[in-house]
């Protein structure tokens, strides 16, 4: 297989060729399958959001959203996750240019930001429990911990998954297989940011004003 450099006469041919993660039908199919997974995962979150919006006023004498939420805390979580979505996107972009070292660096930065996000969230949950706001305090808190905790579990899983792919990229470089894996974990990470935007808006910001 020849190296693609000067052998291609026209630039627009390059633009029309498939990027590496789609270069084999089997990998292409796995990316399609992953999109379908994201659609079903969104339905899981849809159910949790529906539960939350119905129950968020049922505080049973316990803390309300306004008294419980720590503004600097959730602001920091939001900007950290937003930045990690950006760095994850850069990793995907570098993968499409087949620069494996750069992919590894950007995946590593994304993992660190993910860990920072989870660290803040765990701190927030521990604080809540210490002041008596546990999952069994009220329907509001049951729905809150289930929704935000499910998202946190997804991020934690994403960190482990991304670390596994980082190791593969370091060992094998960018092949059609590792390229597809980098692409899918990138989609997953952006998707988690999409869900967080809704949590930030519906849970935290709305909780501050209602």
């Amino acid at each position, binding site marked *: 297989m020849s190296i693609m450099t000067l052998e291609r006469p026209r630039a627009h041919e390059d633009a029309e060729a498939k990027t590496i993660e789609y270069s084999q039908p089997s990998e292409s199919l796995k990316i399609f399958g992953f999109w379908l997974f994201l659609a079903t995962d969104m339905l899981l979150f*849809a159910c949790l959001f529906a539960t939350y919006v119905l129950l968020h006023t049922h505080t049973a004498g316990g803390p309300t959203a306004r008294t419980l939420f720590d503004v600097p805390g959730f602001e920091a979580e939001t900007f950290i996750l937003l930045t990690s979505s950006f760095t994850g996107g850069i990793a995907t972009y570098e993968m499409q240019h087949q620069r494996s070292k750069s992919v590894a660096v950007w995946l590593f930065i994304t993992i660190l930001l993910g860990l920072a996000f989870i660290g803040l969230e765990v701190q927030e949950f521990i604080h809540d429990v210490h002041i008596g706001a546990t999952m069994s305090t009220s329907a509001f808190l049951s729905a809150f911990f289930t929704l935000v905790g499910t998202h946190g579990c997804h991020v934690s899983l994403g960190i482990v998954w991304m670390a596994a792919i980082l190791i593969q990229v370091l060992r094998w470089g960018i092949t059609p297989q590792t390229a597809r894996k980098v692409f899918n974990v990138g989609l997953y990470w952006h998707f988690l940011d999409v869900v967080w935007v809704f949590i930030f808006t519906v849970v935290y910001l709305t909780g501050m004003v209602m």
Partner: protein
Amino acid sequence: MQAHMEMGKPVQAGKPQHGIGQYVLGYVLSVVLTLAALWAVFAHGLHGGPLVLILLALAVLQIGVQLFLFMHITKGDGPPVHSLAIAMAFFFTVVFVAGSLWAMSFHYMVA
């Protein structure tokens, strides 16, 4: 796996049609939209329903940024069939949330 033997050599494949600028633009837009949402909440200019509507509108824009500038949802191998699945998931999300709120608003029947 044969792929292991090709380590180091670039595989012959195309380049993405978008540049890195899309990611930078997406990041700037999401930061601006997030700051706008925070400002709307803490500036205390708006209250209740209108404020929540503004926040939801900002969230929808922000999700558009993620879907189009980061995930490139319309791009893929061939026609973007996968975006139909995602569109349907968004539709179901709205139905689940709005439908639950609507059904549970009949207090005398569901309490």
